[in-house]
């Protein structure tokens, strides 16, 4: 559940970023598509990294074992 919610947050962030890019630099259809591509690529890269780290900690096979002494 937490996974889906945070993935949704990433999607929203991506949409907001592409809207912001469209609003602030609107320079014709080919440039707009270019900016959109960049925003989508960045969102996917960031989400993928977060998702990998999250899923790896979902059902861990090993647990933290503290080292002796403080």
């Amino acid at each position, binding site marked *: 559940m937490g996974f889906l919610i945070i993935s949704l947050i990433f999607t929203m962030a991506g949409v907001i970023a592409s809207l912001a890019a469209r609003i602030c630099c609107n320079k014709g259809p080919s440039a707009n*598509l270019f900016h959109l591509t*960049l925003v989508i690529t960045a969102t996917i*890269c960031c989400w993928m990294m977060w998702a*990998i780290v999250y899923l790896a900690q979902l059902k861990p096979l*090993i647990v*933290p074992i*503290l080292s002796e002494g403080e």
Partner: protein
Amino acid sequence: MGEGGCCPSMELFRSEPMQLVQLIIPIESAHLSISYLGELGLVQFKDLNAEKSPFQRTYATQIKRCGEMARKLRFFKEQMTKAGLTPSTRPLTRVDIDLDNLETKLGELETELIEINANSDKLQRTYSELLEYKLVLRKAGEFFYSAQSSATAQKREIDARQMGEVSIDSPLLLEQEMSIDPSKQVKLGYVSGLVPRENSMAFERILFRATRGNVFLRQAVIEEPVMDPMSGEKVEKNVFVVFYSGERAKAKILKICEAFGANRYPFTEDVGKQGQMLTEVSGKISELKTTIDVGLMHRDNLLKAISYQFEQWSLLARKEKSIYHTLNMLSFDVTKKCLVAEGWSPVFAINQIQDALKRATFDSNSQVGSIFQVLHTKESPPTYFRTNKFTSAFQEIVDAYGVAKYLEANPGVYTIITFPFLFAVMFGDWGHGICLLLATLFFIIREKKLSTQKLGDITEMTFGGRYVIMMMALFSIYTGLIYNEFFSVPFELFGRSAYACRDPSCSDSTTVGLIKVRGTYPFGVDPAWYGTRSELPFLNSLKMKMSILIGVAQMNLGIVLSYFNAKFYGSNLNIWYQFVPQIIFLNSLFGYLSLLIIVKWCTGSQADLYHVMIYMFLSPTDDLGENQLFAGQKTLQMVLLLLALVAVPWMLLPKPFLLKKQHQERHQGQSYALLQSTDDSFEVEAHHDSHGHEEFEFSEVFVHQLIHTIEFVLGAVSNTASYLRLWALSLAHSELSSVFYEKVLLLAWGFNNIIILVVGIIVFICATVGVLLVMETLSAFLHALRLHWVEFQNKFYEGDGYKFNPFSFALLSDEDD
């Protein structure tokens, strides 16, 4: 990504469409036209006179004139640096200077400057000689004075003795002395001057030997070094006076003086005259000094006046030279009244070029306008990407490997995001990321000022890549937050850690460990892991699997780009017999591995993935036992294995045969088409470049396809493993960072001594900046670059085009050629 034939084309994804244009320019407007086109900077001229040598070309004399002017400007620059002036970089009002005027002006200034220099050299020499003369007068005067006084003292003694004693032997001697005839007395002559101190011993010895000891030499040391008139440098010298008798001795002495570079100056015995000469020489010296100073001031004023206009003049000279070089590339048409130019230019620039030509016609008062027409050709055009200051650095990174073929998909678009991202995966520490960001913001904020200055080599490269580094820093902050490392210290920023002790006394936390009591830490690696004994096994497993997943994703993107290329060039062959088997092969093996990784994480199974993958090949029909992750896994594995095995001959065999069939079809029905197709092919239906010459060597094509297939199949394994460097470098970075933190900073803190703490902080800062911020940045940059150039681009990139290199004044190099 969501772009095909339906949507508008994406900027920077493919090269700008280019066309070959022909310009016919009347001679009177030629110079102006080329000048305006140079300012526009959008035409790359072809050299139509390639067979001619540089001396046979039309405008060779003009180029020589420009070369002369450049030489004169270089001479001025030398003189200015010698005088300690620098050409001012003030932007002046544009004064339109004609080339001929400039030439005459430069010539005048040069002669004037040379004259001033020669005069001042002569004056300087005379001045040094006079100074030396003054020294000689002073020191030699001392000799004579002391010699005179001792002679009179001795005479008085002898007279006193004469008065006192009258003995038997003395009168005889006295008589003999007194009876010497004064006319038979030998007259002594003397030579006075200056000799360099290092030669003085040898000078003395040779004088002695040459005259058989019949000379008397007195030397006196001069304390400060004297300016030698010949060489213009300060040399240590001695004043000497040589007494000799006889003409032959004199001649020998003079020759020896010349050989040793000893300057001679005349000297009189008369004390009164000595004083007179001294005052005369002193007067001349002060006069000369003022003359020299006035001369130098005049020269400095001249150089200053030159320095204000120097930049403008040198720019003009360079521009003119480049214009004439370009004019030399044009050929005359039949009537000899027009120049014909051929060149590549982007399609969007048509209006601008026509505009420039019209203006040139108007400004040169020519009766005839220039003609502009587009030629159709099968030659391959240059590749041109319109980049701004942000994207140009990334495009250069891609171009360093190879310039994109005309109209091929440009990896630069994705590189803008994936390159900093892969860097950040290897660099992940948000403290270091913030440091990098601050450093690069310094460059970006002062970019207007820094872009006009001349920077050193390394600073120039860093400045050119400032936007790349900024992206790298931003992504590093993100991955640093995910890895939860701030100078290797974790923070609990996004909620509570998921792990806690099993029981309130925490008795077995060091043996069995903590357990997961809450939901997963929402963003990044749980801070409870840091400093534990099982930190490394966990992080290593996480990072290795992450590298594989990222690698497979990027390689799939590469293969999908090859699909877009194939679709654009309309090559069905490439789609069905290259793209499809490649996707199937890669994903049935490594895509499946990625799926297994994700399933294992989601279900928490204890299956051994190495075992699963290896035995998928070795014994696919065996029962999986405890390595079963989901139902139907065995069947799925067998299907995937079969698909992979089928994909290999699918990549290898059909394509050469189909190419051969296509080649035969093309040549059977259309014999008239042969003329057209003997040129180098820029064909929209691009077959492989192996038959650009219309000869189809089947064996060659087959071997080419075999190599390609083997490269892909073996590369699938090796490239996937290559992505493990993401894990390796990130591990190295975090370990170095934690060593510096624990063993330097914490150690220094533990001593409770302020001096040790300060020393510790300094060492920590130096180590962090030197090793982590500089060395690790370069290292991660290099490895991210390699991953892009090799593992990503070899899936789709051909990169055998050539770059668009327009004739543009903005791109003139600074060095004189």
